[in-house]
């Protein structure tokens, strides 16, 4: 296996759809299949804390994004001196400008990702990204920058980042959606907005659909004959989810489905394994 390339797998989508769950599980599968994997959580304070308590298998390295440190790196590159960069970081004027200036935060974060991707330390870098709107601002910042700043090392850097983000082989973006009305609508909008921005998303991963526990004919029979309220409940919820998935397939095209993990069912683990396998094959193609 060629070790000279890192593939970034960037997950975005509405809050609460299970991005963190998918990122962690996919990272584990990818680690098993292809070696070392970096797992990056974007700064969403509480969720980061919630998952930090989890232990990862040895091939997974959790990479925390320290925005201040990342800004320091970017500054050091611009001014050439780490010491000056550090002093700048300590200046309250500078931090106020940095906190309020539109676009800076995005540039800092995305160049941090690029750095990870070129370090050759990982076969995959899985990014548990922020919601679609914020991700869009994040991913388009370097392209705008590179287009407009023709000279200098920061510009070269922005160009490299922009190239990475727009290369669908090295930078794979999937939108995660829950089988719910609002999340599905946001996923479709997200796809369109990414494409408008010149970024080709891989597709949508629907997370959390109830697993298929009865065949179609069994479901039909049970829906009209079963006296158990739980059976009606399950079938009604699954039917509603399937209708949303159907609508998504119409509007979004390629879909992948990861069922909800429920005790006694196997399908979630199987689907995650298969999904990771597809990511590996695509990355090596």
């Amino acid at each position, binding site marked *: 296996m060629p070790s000279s390339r890192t593939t970034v797998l960037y997950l975005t989508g509405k809050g609460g759809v299970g991005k963190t769950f998918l990122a962690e599980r996919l990272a584990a599968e990818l680690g098993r299949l292809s070696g070392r994997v970096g797992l990056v959580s974007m700064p*969403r304070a509480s*969720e980061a804390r919630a998952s930090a308590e989890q232990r990862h298998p040895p091939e997974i390295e959790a990479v925390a994004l320290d925005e201040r440190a990342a800004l320091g790196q970017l500054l050091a590159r611009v001014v050439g001196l780490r010491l*000056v960069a550090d002093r700048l970081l300590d200046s309250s004027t500078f931090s106020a400008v940095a906190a309020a200036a539109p*676009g800076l935060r995005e540039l800092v974060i995305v160049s941090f990702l690029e750095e990870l991707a070129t370090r050759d330390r990982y076969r995959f870098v899985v990014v548990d990204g922020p919601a679609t709107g914020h991700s869009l601002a994040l991913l388009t910042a370097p392209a705008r920058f590179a287009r407009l700043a023709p000279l200098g090392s920061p510009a070269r850097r922005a160009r490299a980042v922009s190239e990475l983000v727009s290369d669908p082989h090295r930078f794979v973006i999937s939108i995660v959606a829950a089988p719910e009305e609002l999340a599905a609508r946001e996923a479709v909008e997200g796809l369109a907005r990414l494409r408008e921005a010149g970024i080709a998303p891989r597709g949508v991963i629907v997370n959390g659909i109830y697993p298929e526990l009865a065949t179609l004919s069994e479901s039909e029979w*049970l829906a009209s004959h079963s006296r158990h309220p739980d059976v009606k409940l399950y079938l009604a919820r699954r039917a509603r989810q399937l209708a949303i998935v159907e609508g998504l397939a119409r509007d979004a095209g390629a879909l992948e489905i990861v069922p909800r993990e429920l005790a006694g069912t196997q399908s979630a683990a199987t689907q995650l394994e298969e999904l990771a396998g597809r990511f590996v094959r695509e990355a090596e193609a």
Partner: protein
Amino acid sequence: MSGAAPKSAGVASLLKGRRLVFFVGEGGVGKTSCAAALALAFAARGKSVAVLTIDPAPRLGDALGLEAIDAEWRDVGHATLIRNGGRLAASRLDTKSVFDRLVTRLAPSPNAARKILDNPIYASVSGQLSGADSYMAFQQLHDLLGANDFDLVVVDTPPAAHADEILGAPARLARLLETGAISVIADPALAVARAGSKIAAFTIRWLLKALERVTGTTLRSDLADFALGFHDVVASLSERATEVTEILRSSETLVVEVVRPDARSVAVARALRSSLEIAGLTVGYTLVNRHTPPAPAEAPAPSEDASPEMLAAEARIVAAITALRLEENEAVEKLKAMLVTEGERDGRLLRLTESESGLESLDALLELGERILDSEASTEQA
């Protein structure tokens, strides 16, 4: 199932002496629906209530008569409400238009207001300032509480997993003013003195130039204009936000956190709760929303004509729903344990069963609101 669960008091008993109910929680937990339902049910008891929603799902928006995206207030008409002499005014937050209106009102002159509104920095700040939604919700809240037209104001907030997402934007803007950063941008010569070295000044200038390219604006001169015209406006915006924050911290406000009954959502809720605590806001009530309905007291006998395959499929499904309930109960137990360790008394947590028919009508919304207000009317799960 172990014994009877402690009786859960509804929100109604906690509303005495409150002017404001502040809903918080992450995305997808049903915050907006719960806020609207509570407001509707309280109005149906003859009160005058205002509810500010952030981004209602299309059908909820329709039910409230908020089809259009604007900041207009609309009176919600419902038979019970009218019969009991109550009133419910509903609005959805439109960040940009609230900001525009405030600038027009707070700027020293109409001319100054126009200069601000036309400034590209303003467009960027008003639309993209992170937390702008919360910020503008605060501003609208200030007007609502100031006018004193309502017995109760119910507010939905944007999805948040950390207090900073709700309360941070005003502080950031205020900090920008306090440090004089805007004047430094306007006159980079100042940066030499402030940032401590020529290289630092150079860097700030480089950065601004780079950002001009990223944002496509002429950042520096625009910022200078912006700083001159906007300073007064931002100062009074900050003042208003501070006043609202004070009310949020006071006993006039009931903070309600909405959470889903799963382990992840509970972990997020716990972190949000403690970050709010640090900011001086205490969550006074927790709604565990979208619970799976309780199991039937007695499992019904299978159909006589069921084949072995059908029976097996039925058993698989029942087992899955049972597992789901177990997961949910475990998550809620964790949540309850947390409430106890924080010294809260029982009865400040209510489980709401997911409505299988959805909340497409005002009647369904009212029914949910009644359950939130007065849980005795609902069946609490053991």
